[in-house]
């Protein structure tokens, strides 16, 4: 730790080039297929699902967004965006609160941690089915009482985007949020809070002016996870969205029915949103990190 290792040899060993080649192939493997559908979404009007390109055009993208095509995605797109943003905000707030709680000792902390990890690794189809069943049972139980006070759900059940759907997404994003908070707080010395306290800061002041600036870049990371995981989530959504559909669900359904490059145009649009969010948050992360280093050279 203390001693910096001196490079033993000037020349890179042969294994470096082999591994670099392996890594390059891995990156091509990761990105290659996506590049092909990005390319094919600009297929000419008479082009098909595979190469060669029959000209280059915005035909399929226009068809998709003009509403003239076989796919109506505008409303699903808006629903997913609204849900993703809600999940993002809630994931950040709830994860930070829980992260702060785990800095102190409280009864049940171990149980909560294991539940969070379990929520991450229990198959999503099981969770999805469970939430759907839970809501159906609750509806059955509550319906007589609600009817008695004149409240009856017009749709027949309470499964929906912002009830069961939101919950199913949080059960997926919060474990990631908590694990990131763990990683962050494990590296953040408790003496910062103690120093703040010694200087007379209140709880809120010590959080607002000491802890928050130090963890802010990582909160952006949690926000990124919160949005992108919700934006692409499909397995947990499958039974919990009620009568509505999110964008990935539409997309999965379309894989079996659409036989034109319109589906690639949709894929390109969805990926464009993902990339905007990813690179936007990464830029914000770097910006915050730099600002943090300028203001507090010794922090971290």
């Amino acid at each position, binding site marked *: *730790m203390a*001693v910096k*290792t001196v*490079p033993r040899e000037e020349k890179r060993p042969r*294994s470096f080039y082999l*591994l670099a080649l392996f890594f390059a192939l*891995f990156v091509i*493997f*990761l*990105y*290659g*297929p*996506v590049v092909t*559908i990005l390319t094919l979404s600009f297929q000419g009007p008479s082009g098909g*699902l*595979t*190469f060669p390109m029959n000209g280059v055009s915005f035909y399929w993208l226009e068809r998709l967004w003009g509403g003239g095509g076989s796919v109506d995605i505008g409303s699903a797109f808006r629903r997913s965006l609204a849900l993703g943003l809600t999940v993002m905000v809630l994931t950040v707030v*709830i*994860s930070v*609160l*829980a992260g702060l709680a785990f800095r*102190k000792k409280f009864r*049940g902390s171990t149980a*909560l*941690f294991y*539940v969070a990890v*379990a929520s991450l*690794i*229990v*198959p*999503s*189809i*099981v969770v999805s*089915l*469970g939430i759907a*069943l*839970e809501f*159906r049972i609750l509806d059955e139980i509550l319906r007589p009482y609600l009817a008695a006070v004149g409240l009856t759900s017009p749709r027949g059940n309470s499964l929906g985007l912002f009830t*069961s759907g939101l919950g*199913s997404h949080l*059960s997926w994003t*919060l474990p990631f949020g*908590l694990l990131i908070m*763990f990683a962050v707080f494990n590296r953040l010395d408790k003496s910062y809070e103690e120093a703040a306290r010694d200087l007379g800061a209140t*709880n809120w002041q010590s959080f607002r002016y000491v802890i928050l600036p130090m963890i802010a870049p990582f909160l952006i990371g949690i926000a*990124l*996870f919160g949005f992108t995981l919700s934006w*692409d989530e499909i*397995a947990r959504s499958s039974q919990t969205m009620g009568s509505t559909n999110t964008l*990935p669900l539409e*997309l999965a359904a379309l*894989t079996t029915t659409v036989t034109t490059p319109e589906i*690639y145009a949709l*894929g390109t649009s*969805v*990926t464009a949103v*993902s*990339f905007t969010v*990813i690179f936007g948050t*990464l830029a914000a992360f770097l910006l915050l990190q730099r600002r943090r280093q300028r203001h507090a050279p010794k922090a971290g």
Partner: protein
Amino acid sequence: MTVTNDITASEASGSPEVSALPAKGQGVRKVPTSWTPWWVGYLQAAPMALVFLLFFILPLAATFVVSFWNYTEYSIEPAFVTTNYSDVFYGCFSGGSALCTTFATYLSTLKFVAIVWLLTLQIGFTVAYFLCFHVKTLPMQIALFMVCTIPFWTSNVIRMISWIPLLGRYGLVNETLQGLGLIDAPLEWLLYSDFAVALALVHLYTLFMVVPIFNSMMRIDKALIEAAYDAGASSWQTLTNIVIPLVKPGIVIGSIFVVTIVTGDYLTIGIMGGQQIASVGKVIQTQINFLQFPIAAANAIVLLAVVLLTIWGMLRLVDIRKEL
């Protein structure tokens, strides 16, 4: 693990001021503080606990309860019957030579688990090793790590369908092979096949191996590697005697992710298998579509038990909380 601890300990004992400080700090912390009221922690943990209670614990409980219910063509009704479970395992224990549907499905899934686990482990370890030991500067390491991570934040379905123009009957691979004269007719097993499923699963989930293994590797004190070289170890000996034992926790965590994801998968197997290959998740989904909730619940409970047993076995090898 122990090796690293020894070194830190010996370093600390070398400088008395450093070793004195933590002890003093611990002494201070033992005094109960009135600064933060005891209930604040509970209040802070409450939202997360509530979400998991409502959208994880209770749903699993509901699934367990419903798995004992009765169902007809039109409705499900509360009861306590074990017929759903006997339906799930129909023919499994009768002693016949043919495998029952459930066992056959799990066996098929197990095949994918084994293939995908082996491949993701090999690829993930190699990539992490390159990033950790061969990329010299931290900014470069972070940049290349991000290159690996970004696809994880994009849609899985899109990453699946992006194989279609490559692997289809008239896709790039077949056209190229035919153009080169290597094959006469298009290969049919490239898409909507076991091969396509395994390929897509490796494509989607190798990152789950890279991240924990990379995390463990970055914690290895580089001085240990130097020491091994100085003691005359070959690269291979260093790898097997130093690196692999120290990244074992990362390997186990990555394996847990990959194994559980593949076991419960139904989307990848559905889309890339052309809806022709069986998986437990797909069975459950089909039963849900026919509104046969109780038997779907019974299948879900069996799947859950299988997954939990697997994790339990793997967790005996490592303590996750230490790894963050």
